[in-house]
């Protein structure tokens, strides 16, 4: 045998062994049957800035549950699958988790198309699916059903909260700039809905929709200033806020005119933007590590720091995951069962205690009624990252679409 042939057969042989090993490795088969939770999310690629912390949040809640003995000794085991941010990849994983691994619950997802695709499959298979990052209003709105729950805010809650907060300000002439994709439009539409509801008489002097992942905002910035708005609302996803505010910083936008942006208040943004983090902008998020200064929140931050080396936990990531995990584990305990129907009953209307206070899972749409924290970005000596001052918590009951609205949207979607 020549050398090349030898190598060839070696490669073939190694490949065969590997393929065999991968396909026949048996699952875990020891002791008490664990409760299986399958998490599908983009665990590789750019979204890991949110998905990895969210996974830690889930783990934290699950660890708390397991440490207390689980459900009569049954502990939760987490299985993770990488969605690669693709819908078809995720439904493949959802099938594998439910049909092959036999998971009891599904959770995760960042991309809304992934969430909707998995949700559709969960509905068919009658399994609970808890969304921890995806924001599209359709998930619990018109496309909502019995088996889907969301423990993090939705785009309409975030948008309406912004509108409510902006209505407390004197600005009348607004300009809206947003990323041209589902989330951007959704949050901007709801911002405007909230603002006009609580402050009739405001005027939109213009709007612009740069494409998703735009790299040059110069022309948009000058066009915006030419309209002489009194305030600007920036409707960007967390990843889009980064290049926008980097360039807005060079332009001095925030010094010229008040800018409002949801998501900018999240610690992920101040971590990434560092020196380019605009100070004096109106920013918001669903969780702040420095507010409220309650023992519960301080304990949570301490835990994040010790366990996950994350001293400035973010709302999009770890807090969202933690809330979802908390909802699920509390519901399992309340129901004293892992049966889907019983856990759904327990989840509907369930209130959990979180580091920022109680949050309720609304029964009519399975959407967590989350508050938002708005404020002005600033720098204080206690923290190396930018924080916020004059913090204003938007009350959930003022900024969520009513159950009647949700039902109407679902009916309209069915009739279509």
């Amino acid at each position: 045998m020549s050398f090349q042939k030898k190598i060839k057969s070696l490669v073939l042989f190694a490949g065969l062994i590997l393929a065999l090993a991968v396909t026949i490795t048996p699952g875990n088969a020891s002791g008490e049957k664990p409760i299986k939770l399958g998490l599908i999310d983009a665990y590789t690629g750019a979204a890991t800035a949110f998905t990895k912390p969210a996974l830690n949040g889930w783990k934290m809640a699950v660890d708390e549950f397991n440490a207390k003995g689980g459900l009569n000794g049954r502990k939760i085991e987490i299985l993770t699958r990488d969605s690669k941010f693709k819908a078809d990849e995720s439904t493949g994983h959802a099938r594998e988790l439910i049909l092959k691994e036999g998971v009891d619950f599904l959770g995760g997802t960042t991309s809304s198309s992934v969430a909707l695709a998995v949700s559709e499959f969960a509905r068919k298979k009658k399994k609970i699916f808890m969304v921890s990052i995806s924001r599209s209003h359709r998930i619990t709105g018109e496309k909502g059903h019995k088996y889907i729950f969301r423990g993090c805010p939705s785009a309409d809650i975030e948008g309406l909260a912004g509108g409510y907060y902006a209505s407390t300000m004197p600005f009348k002439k607004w300009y809206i700039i947003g990323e041209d994709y589902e989330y951007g439009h959704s949050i901007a539409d709801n911002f405007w809905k909230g603002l006009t509801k609580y402050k009739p008489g405001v005027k939109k002097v213009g709007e612009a929709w740069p494409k998703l992942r735009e790299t040059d905002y110069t022309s948009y910035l000058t066009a915006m200033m030419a309209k002489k708005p009194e305030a600007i609302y920036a409707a960007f996803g967390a990843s889009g806020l980064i290049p926008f505010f980097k360039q807005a910083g060079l332009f001095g936008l925030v010094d010229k005119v008040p800018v409002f942006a949801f998501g900018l208040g999240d610690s992920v943004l101040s971590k990434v933007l560092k020196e380019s983090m605009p100070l004096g902008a109106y920013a918001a998020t669903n969780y702040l590590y420095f507010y409220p200064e309650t023992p519960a929140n301080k304990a949570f931050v301490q835990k994040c720091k010790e366990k996950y080396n994350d001293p400035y936990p973010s709302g999009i990531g770890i807090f969202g995951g933690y809330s979802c995990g908390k909802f699920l584990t509390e519901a399992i305990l309340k129901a004293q069962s892992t049966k889907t129907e019983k856990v759904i009953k327990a989840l509907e209307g369930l209130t959990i205690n979180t580091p920022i206070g109680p949050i309720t899972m609304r029964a009519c749409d399975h959407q967590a009624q989350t508050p938002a924290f708005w404020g002005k970005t600033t720098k204080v000596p206690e923290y190396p990252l930018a924080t916020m001052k004059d913090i204003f918590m938007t009350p959930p009951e003022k900024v969520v679409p009513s159950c009647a609205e949700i039902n109407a949207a679902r009916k309209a979607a069915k009739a279509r």
Partner: protein
Amino acid sequence: MQEVKKSSASAWLVWLILIPIFLAIPFVLEKGISQYYLYLAIKVMVWALFAMSFNLALGYGGMMSFGHAAFFGIGAYTCSLLLIKTSCPLVLAFAAATFAAAAAGLIIGYLSVRIKGIFFFATITLSFAQLAYILVFKWRSFTFGDDGIQGIPVPEMISTDETYIKYYFFALVITVICIYLLWKTVRSPFGLMLRSLRENPERAVFFGMKVENYRLIAFVISAFFSGVAGVLYAFLETAIAPDILFWSMSGEVILMSVLGGMHVFLGPAIGAAIMVLLNTFITSYTEYWPLCLGITLILIVLFFPGGVAGLIHERYTIWRKKKAT
């Protein structure tokens, strides 16, 4: 004469073994192991059809298209939108979708087949495909934008809600018919002309062949069958998103062809099976799937440049020759 008889007898034998296997697969997988594996088998089938129809352009026509995701996606989207927005019957939606894919193939093909050089051809087909992607992504009121379409109403007859067996046979019949038609195409005089054109276009021109016409027809046929694969995919997943039109999908199908062997008829199907299964199993086991996948691909390309099917074919010919002597 005896040789021909012998080979046709062995062909019958192959079919005699293959048919029961294909009939037994769904029952063994779904009842015996797990429904999930039957889903995987169907997924492999859909990708195999997509890869083989793509290979008509690459392997036989010598056209390095970087835009086949567009035809796959147009097929899937046309069918899904028709079923969701109108009360159009399944057969009509299916036909409309495949013709839409073929029409897109005609337009894109007409504008690109004249272009000489692999690089330029790849670039222009890529641009057209990205155009289709952006259209689907941005036209939110019509295509639901990046949220995608969920809950595609699949008729009870082939629904995958309870069992995948019905859908397996539906997909199998369509895939086999399509593969048979593709086989007939590459074996026909047209297919032979196409290959001569791939090997030596100048000479083909001297023979009086209209190069562009042949390439265009091959491109449209390829787009048509990619559209069929797209429809099968949409029914299988019952949820689609714009990323099925993204360029990375075109890249995947190229990889499948190269991996399986683009100069062997069934090569791309083998490539599809390898890619789908590798991808599925590796991602379930480790977060570092891109590394494992990359290493495997490098090894295959380095040691088996003719693809896996190319290697099998080569071995088979050597064995036959040895036997003959």
